[in-house]
């Protein structure tokens, strides 16, 4: 892939991630603080089709954009902690043979939610937010499955574009 094409694809994916985060904010789930972590789909796609470095850049740009688009500094802290932790877990697990995309994605979602709760623990200097973690962890299973299904579907189509 040429450099220009790589940058263009990164830009499209970053925009997609920012839109997904914004859409997510419009549909708060009934449980407090819960977010679907839809932006994880983009992280997954980027990891599969572009590699680690572009994927990391997309995660960081998405978090910065999210802060500008209304998340603020607190939001930035939350999304960065969640985003980077889940990114780290995903690149580690992608190399573990007995784990498929499903497991990687679920672990990524769990890491994302854990990261956000830990950010809240740090920010509030209280262990109270840990009480939310069990529900967050349980929900990371369906979220992770959804992410894996969507990411692999999109990845197949994206390959046709990026390989030209």
């Amino acid at each position: 892939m040429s450099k220009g094409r790589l940058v263009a694809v990164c830009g499209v994916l970053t925009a997609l991630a920012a839109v997904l985060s914004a859409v997510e904010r419009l549909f708060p789930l009934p449980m407090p603080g819960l977010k679907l972590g839809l932006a994880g789909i983009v992280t997954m796609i980027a990891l599969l089709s572009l590699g680690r470095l572009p994927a990391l850049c997309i995660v960081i740009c998405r978090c910065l954009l999210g802060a500008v688009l209304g998340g603020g500094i607190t939001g930035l802290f939350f999304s960065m902690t969640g985003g980077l932790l889940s990114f780290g877990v995903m690149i580690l697990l992608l190399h573990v043979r007995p784990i498929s995309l499903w497991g990687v994605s679920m672990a990524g979602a769990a890491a994302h939610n854990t990261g956000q709760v830990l950010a809240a623990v740090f920010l509030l200097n209280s262990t109270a937010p840990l009480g939310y973690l069990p529900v967050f962890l349980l929900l990371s299973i369906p979220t992770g499955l959804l992410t894996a299904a969507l990411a692999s579907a999109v990845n197949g189509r994206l390959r046709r574009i990026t390989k030209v």
Partner: protein
Amino acid sequence: MLNKIKIGDVVTVAVILLAAALLWLLWRPGGTVSGAVLSVMGEKTEISLNGLSGETVTRTVIGKDGLILKLEMHGNAVRICESQCPDQVCVRTGWLSRAGATAVCVPAEVILELKGGEEPDALSG
């Protein structure tokens, strides 16, 4: 295009479920309520809930960045009923009626926690 499920995926699910179950057991709200603790930007205040059985009492709290929150107390239950924060997580938490239950507002740095009578919560404190 979808991958086959491997053994590691099952292990991942098991680990997540186990972690959730352990945390849930450790942080499970329960026991009798002795009072509430309100923490605003790290500053803690005790709220007595005695003798409030019939009436509903409200209280206004000013959190970080001047965000105003309204607390409501009724019987042995408390809730954050209004907040100027953008995400409204604390409001959606609803009524807290069991010891150990918490409502957290991150933008305003406000934590509302119900304290238990007998069993002190070893881990949160």
